[in-house]
């Protein structure tokens, strides 16, 4: 099974067209293995990106150094997946 331990989903808000292009370029860097859950097309749109634990520092440093605001939408993806799986198992046994 793929594990998402320590992965986060960041909600990022670009405040200019230039920042949107920067985020698109960032998302295309294969080694970061970013997964764009929701794209932004214009400033003030929210962009949600699933960031593997191993890329978190790099991505957050990039955002902070370019003054791009973000918040953590999902703190730990694996814990949400675990919760969902537990719910399904419980429902099945019921």
């Amino acid at each position: 099974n793929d594990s998402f331990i320590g992965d986060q989903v960041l909600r990022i808000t670009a405040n200019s067209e230039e920042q949107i292009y920067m985020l698109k370029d960032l998302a295309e860097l294969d080694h970061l293995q970013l997964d764009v859950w929701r794209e932004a097309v214009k400033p003030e749109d929210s962009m949600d990106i699933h960031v593997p634990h191993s890329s978190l520092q790099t991505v957050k440093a990039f955002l902070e150094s370019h003054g791009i605001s973000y918040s953590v939408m999902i703190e730990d993806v694996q814990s949400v997946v675990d919760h969902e799986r537990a719910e399904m198992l419980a429902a099945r046994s019921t």
Partner: protein
Amino acid sequence: AQIRSTNSFDYANYHTLEEIYNWMDELASEYPHLVTKEQIGSSYEGRPLYILKFSTGGNNRPSIWIDTGIHSREWVTQATGVWMAKKIASDYGNDESITSILDQMDIFIEIVTNPDGFHFTHTKNRMWRKTRSINAGTSCVGVDPNRNWDAGFGGPGASSQPCSETYRGPRANSEKEVKAIVDFVQAHGNIKAFVSIHSYSQLLLYPYGYTSTPVPDKQELHDLAQRAVSALSSLYGTSYRYGSIITTIYQASGGTIDWTYKQGIKYSYTFELRDNGRYGFLLPANQIIPTAQETWLAVKVIMEHTRDNPY
């Protein structure tokens, strides 16, 4: 798990492919004069592609198509498809509007449009989006089936890189899951509305995605979207945006409803269901039924308009 009755089925939970397919059999057996399960093809890994046909008779009647879950990780869509299918079956003969629609038209629902991906989300990778087809020359698997249609295929808003989540595939209709629908729609020839359901971000969209040129029916589609969203929001106050794909979210080529619109299916819409960015694809199961209930109100508006405006 063997499904004993579609009444006792747990609609407020997520289910595996096997459970959904068993549930489809049960629904068809409980409503033998209304519901049939048909196979329209098979997936890359050989799983059957099933649709439910709701029909009260007639031959090649004007029809409405609904699909859910072409992106496998969007679990609330398949769950919504299950709930809506039961709703259609149980409302026939009890709800005036649904009875009237089904007395004139057929409804088709493909609940698990990407079964290989769906099985993969349940067994290996909960976040899988694409099909599971092998791409020559790379270890990256799968094609985004919502970039694989013959409508602006290969243009901006889709990737040529097999490792990308929006990889368009080697050619239009390369994915068996897409080709099966293309063949079905063309062979049928009388589909009047096509509703493709995704999640998340709460949007109701109409063509185009690959070009900023407005569709000829833009005003009618826009007005209908407004009414559908208004009905949806009336239940729980969920806020939706609506408009063409390219103006509302982003440019996307090779998308499903651009192709259906080009085939002459005027009422072509795509939904993005709940939520608006708290859980994303991991929407808790306790939101399945509210999501399905509100979505149903919007789908019903589109179906009624299709019934009342033959073309």
